[in-house]
């Protein structure tokens, strides 16, 4: 059973990432705050007695459900509904060199002058914008796998799909991001 401190530390460690993910999904900062708060309350009310190790996966599942609930409510209100269906990309990314873009992400960020700091902020903004533009399922798989650091099986369980689908979504997301970032001039 997680103690109050363990639960507090856990929520503190995930709340910012959760809010960002919710913003990517619903494109509304206030709605994202409501979703994250709702997720934290649901976790605390129903699963506070679970061991600390189970909290990350439970939190991700509740967050996904809360986001889906938000979309359902929006649909009921006849507002704009984002397309949550599978995205099939062109798949023609095999010749793209990911490492070329990777160096740009890691290279100039180590030591920063004022100019580099501004440049860094712009790079971060661009990356966030490109992540937000990813198809929903690809983005969800990518963020759960690499940002929340869930393994493939946990990501699949959280998304309610097969492990193969998770790998495919992640691979497509990585290639789409690398291609988009290179197109924006974020290269070595």
């Amino acid at each position, binding site marked *: 059973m997680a103690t*109050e401190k363990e639960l507090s530390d856990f929520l503190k460690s995930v709340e910012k*990432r959760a809010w*960002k993910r919710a913003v990517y999904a619903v494109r509304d*900062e206030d709605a994202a705050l409501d979703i994250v*708060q709702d997720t934290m309350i649901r976790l605390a009310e129903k699963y506070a007695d679970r061991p600390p190790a189970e909290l990350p996966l439970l939190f991700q599942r509740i967050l996904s459900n809360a986001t889906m609930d938000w979309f359902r409510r929006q649909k009921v209100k006849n507002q704009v509904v984002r397309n949550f269906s599978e995205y099939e990309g062109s798949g023609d990314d095999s010749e793209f060199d990911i490492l070329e873009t990777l160096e740009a992400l890691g290279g100039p960020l180590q030591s920063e002058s004022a100019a580099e700091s501004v440049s860094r902020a712009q790079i971060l903004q661009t990356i966030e914008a490109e992540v937000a533009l990813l198809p929903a399922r690809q983005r969800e798989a990518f963020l759960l796998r690499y940002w929340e650091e869930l393994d493939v099986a946990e990501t699949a369980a959280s998304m309610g799909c097969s492990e193969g689908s998770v790998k495919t979504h992640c691979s497509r997301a990585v290639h789409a991001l690398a291609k988009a970032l290179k197109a924006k001039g974020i290269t070595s």
Partner: protein
Amino acid sequence: MKLDDRTYRDAARAASEARFARAVAACLSESADRLAPDVAERLRFGREKALELARHSRGEAVGVTASGAAIAGLGKSPWWLRFASVLPLVALVAGLVMIQNWQTRTQISVAAEIDEALLGDDLPINAYRDPGFAEFLKAPPSE
């Protein structure tokens, strides 16, 4: 041999994808750490509200467990309280035993009175076994 090359290429590609993804994730984390103060404050408020609810639900769970134990007589209540809770049951059982005893004594007493009346009467007891005398007793008294 071809298979080995392909496996090697796939592994290298997966490794480079993972490195790229982690680099992007690191950038996202850096960006998340630069949240606006009002957003961070609202997140803190939400977290504290959730923790308060968790505290409340835990308190309720403890209360329910304690009251359940008390009802079952398993709680750590004082001996006199436990004794007092058993007292009505003891009184009920004692009352039932006394009523049973009183009824038995009454029946014995009634039977003894009948025996005494029969044995003390002038009429011999064998007379009641005579069918003619039984008919005489049933017949209405003559003028």
